[in-house]
């Protein structure tokens, strides 16, 4: 369940920093590669990293080492020093074999999304990844991040799967898919970077972002149609009668007066009527856009769900009967999230590449 009710409006400083890094021709080129990779690979529910989805390229350190190798080769050649040459060749050989080592530091790793938590638009949604190995190899220092975020490093050395908790930005209400996941490794020497961009076909529901809508309109409480049947609800205020005590029942409402008189154990019943129910009502917010209404409805819903009164929800073409409790709250939130979800703009390719709309 989403834990924070206060939608975060402040920008994430980490993301801002990463944006500033990704300018210039190099970043533009990287984006091109990613866009290409996005088109090329279909979405899947799980990936085993192998030749088909891994890329590999030297890092800045790798290129710098290449320069050092060249300088050593010059030194060895000019001084006719075979040993310096041999060392240059050894370094070159290390650089070359690191291509295999770095590739092997990801190849064979299986990645799937094990859990995606629903949440409010603008929040960070918990996304748990399951990493498992196919053979005996341990995977050191695997870095994972959703497009546009900072990486998290993990070592997969357990015989059974390891789990990594990341979070994705809920960019809008409705059903969203996570952006591309980057899995990368520079193990062992940081001379090369091996990476894969993965598109998962899982999706998650995002509730509207609650925006303060003021107090519930007074009409909302007695707008209920008069002919509706009284409904028995636990936790209501009005006393309606007695029933005999059943094992396991709370002692709170036991009529101790009757018990003291030796008439047996009775429990007081309380009753509430639908007429006094609260409604989160679409029509209470006339003249607003769809999303603006949903956001305010969401705010009311959260306030009511914290209270002890039962409440219902009315959306065009959909009514949720009044009730109370966590599952009711969830039903209402999902109804808001799904409301005309098919009319929402679909996620752009930019979202998959950058993690934002």
């Amino acid at each position, binding site marked *: 369940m989403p834990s924070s009710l206060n939608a975060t409006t402040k920008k994430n400083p980490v993301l801002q920093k990463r944006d500033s890094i990704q300018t210039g021709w190099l970043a533009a080129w990287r984006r091109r590669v990613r866009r290409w990779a996005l088109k090329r690979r279909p979405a899947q*529910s*799980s990936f085993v990293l192998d030749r088909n989805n891994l890329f590999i390229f030297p890092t*800045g*350190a790798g290129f*710098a*080492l290449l320069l*050092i190798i060249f*300088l*050593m080769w*010059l*030194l*060895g*050649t*000019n*001084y*006719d*020093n*075979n*040993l*310096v*040459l*041999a*060392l*240059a*060749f*050894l*370094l*070159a*050989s*290390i650089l*070359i*074999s*690191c291509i*295999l*080592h770095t*590739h*092997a530091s990801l*190849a*064979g790793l299986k990645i*799937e999304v*094990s859990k995606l938590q629903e949440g409010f638009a603008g929040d960070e949604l918990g996304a748990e990844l*399951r990493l498992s*190995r*196919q*053979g*005996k*190899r341990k995977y*050191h*220092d695997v*870095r994972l991040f959703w497009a546009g975020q900072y990486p998290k*490093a*993990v*070592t997969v*050395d357990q015989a059974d799967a390891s789990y990594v908790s990341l979070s994705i930005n809920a960019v809008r209400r409705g059903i969203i898919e996570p952006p591309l996941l980057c899995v990368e490794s*520079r*193990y*062992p*020497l*940081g*001379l090369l970077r091996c990476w894969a961009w993965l598109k998962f076909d899982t999706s998650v529901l995002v509730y509207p972002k609650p925006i303060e809508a003021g107090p519930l309109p007074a009409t909302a409480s007695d707008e209920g149609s008069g002919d509706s049947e009284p409904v028995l609800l636990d936790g209501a205020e009005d006393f309606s009668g007695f029933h005999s005590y059943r094992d396991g029942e709370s002692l709170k409402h036991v009529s101790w007066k009757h018990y003291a008189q030796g008439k047996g154990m009775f429990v007081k019943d309380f009753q509430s009527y639908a007429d006094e129910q609260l409604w989160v009502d679409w029509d209470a917010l006339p003249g607003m856009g769809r999303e603006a209404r949903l956001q305010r409805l969401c705010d009311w819903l959260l306030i009511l769900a914290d209270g002890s009164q039962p409440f219902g929800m009315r959306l065009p073409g959909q009514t949720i009967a009044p009730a109370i409790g966590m599952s009711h709250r969830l039903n209402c939130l999902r109804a808001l999230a799904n409301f005309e979800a098919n009319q929402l703009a679909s996620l752009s390719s930019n979202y998959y590449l950058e993690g934002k709309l």
Partner: protein
Amino acid sequence: MSLIYQIPRPALWWLLLAQAAVILPLMQYLPLWLLAVWALCVGWRIQVVRGVFDAPKVMVKVPLALCMVAALVLSYGKLFALEPLVALLLLAFLLKLLELQSQRDVLLLLLLGFFVASTQLLFSTSIIAFLYAIISFTFLMAAFMALHTATATHSFWHSLKTSSVITLQAIPLALVLFFIMPRIGSLWTVPLSDGSAKTGFSDSMEPGNISQLSKDYSPAFRVDFTDKKAPVQSSLYWRGLSLSSFDGRRWELPFQDRDDNIRYRRIAQEQKKLNYDWQVDFASYRRKDSSPYIDYQVMMEASFQPWLFALTTASVTAKDVLNTPDYLFLSKRPVSQRFLYQARSYPEFKRQSQSLGPSERYQNTLLPKGSNPRASALAQQWRSAGDSDRKVIANAMRLFQREFTYSLQDTLLSELNPVDDFLFSRKRGYCEHYASAFVVLMRAADIPARVVIGYQGGQWNDEEKYLLVSQADAHAWAEVWLPEQGWTRVDPTSAVAPERIELGFRDYIQQSSTSIEQNGFAELRQSPLLMQLQMQLDAINYSWQSWVLSYDQDQQMIFFQKVLGGQEHWRIVAALMGASTFMLALLALWLWWRARPEAPAAELVPWLELEKKLAAVGWNREPGETPQQFTLRIAGQRPDLEVLLERYTKMAYTLLYTPIGSDQHQQLLKDLAGLRNSIRV
């Protein structure tokens, strides 16, 4: 607020360890105060990491660096030579420690470390130095690893372990590159080491300076005879240079020849213009088929002197080496690293047998006026008795044989008239005394004569079939010019101590005779065990030199010819690609082998087979779904399969709990296979 970069702790420790490993061997060749600079930098860096000090400001760093450079220039007196340049590089490597503001700085420091670690091989090319360089590379790589692995779950030593494995795995490919990667010669001239420690003898001879080499068993050069047969010791006179100028005590090169560079240029110019008689003689002699010769290859240790060594009357083929008129060899630059050359000697060739030019005759009969009067008087007395040149030589030899002792003791003669002092009062001495006295006697008798210094003998290594000549074999002898004979070698030492010439120096001192015990040779003796050990070590060194150090362009061509069957480009490229691919394929195979999917447990196989069959038509078990849930899900869509799938799942579960190998187990396997076939998806 800007964040201050913090280098990961393990990376810092590895960095400092690697730096120590890189610096230590260089301290043999560079000023020791650099060690103090390093200590300062390390101390400062550690205090910064602990948060006690601030990182040094520019105001401190720049003057500090400038002071260090100035100190370097002061201690060397120049900057453009090998040692100061390497020291400068090392200084940059040390001072960079004060400036680690980002990961990039750390990387730069480590990369510089690779370069600095390889410079130590410019000073020493021993196996130990090379292995040490590889070890310091491994340390640097460990620092690289520690810097790049963010998850600090592994132990401190994990980095070193992994980088060692990577290094070892890289060696086969490095060997391929080493042998096949085409060599090109030097691209431009580079400052060479000026050899602060010159070895061997100098370009002059005075009493005492050859005898002090007798304690030095370091190798001077090694000789590989083409016929691989042990040569006769007494014929092994390795001529180095001839000294014809005498001031009464000290033998030197003639005045005009003392600067090696000028001498080289002068001879080179002369030889370009004219063909000298001595050259023409030798060339025509070499062309004759009947001339006997000996072929050999000399691998010379760095001597930091320009002359090479060869047996009597040799022709040497090597780059930038000149033949001098006295049939010796002068290299353009001092031999500052191991040097390999081919030589062919013609022992029976008569040098300048026709005539001796007047200036040469004058130079080789000149004695300073008034010095060593008694020796001159003695020689003139022989001469006036009407003796021939040969008779005079014989007189001198007989004199030495009768009354003189071969000795290492008491080698410093009186300042005034040292030859008289030697001939008439001390009567004991080392080879340089005999050579000097003999030439003085000859010149006084008007026979052209000169002193030759070089090495005599050597130690034969019977296992590896080569001759090791060490500094202790240094020797001085004489050459006299006789009509018809030309320049002829006369070794007065052979008259005094013939065993020295016949056995070679090392074996000579191993003997036990009273003359050896009394004359200072016994204390140079080594235990036979030590000698044996030294010989074996030297054999390893020799193989190292002949296989690794001297593998140059020419050797590579021979290698291509032998192994690849030719030197065409396509062969080289194909060999390079083929061999590297093979090596990399081996590594890839090993990596794949370690990551290969493990075979599932036997009792799970039937269930997995079913999953495979279902997956083929698009039914995949979700993570976290039990087999029962999975089959129920499918049954929802294909009610016709419900019974079969349910039975199969049940049996597959039963299989988990039946002991493997039992009859029941076998039966279950068979039933499952049958059932699986009857499920039609």
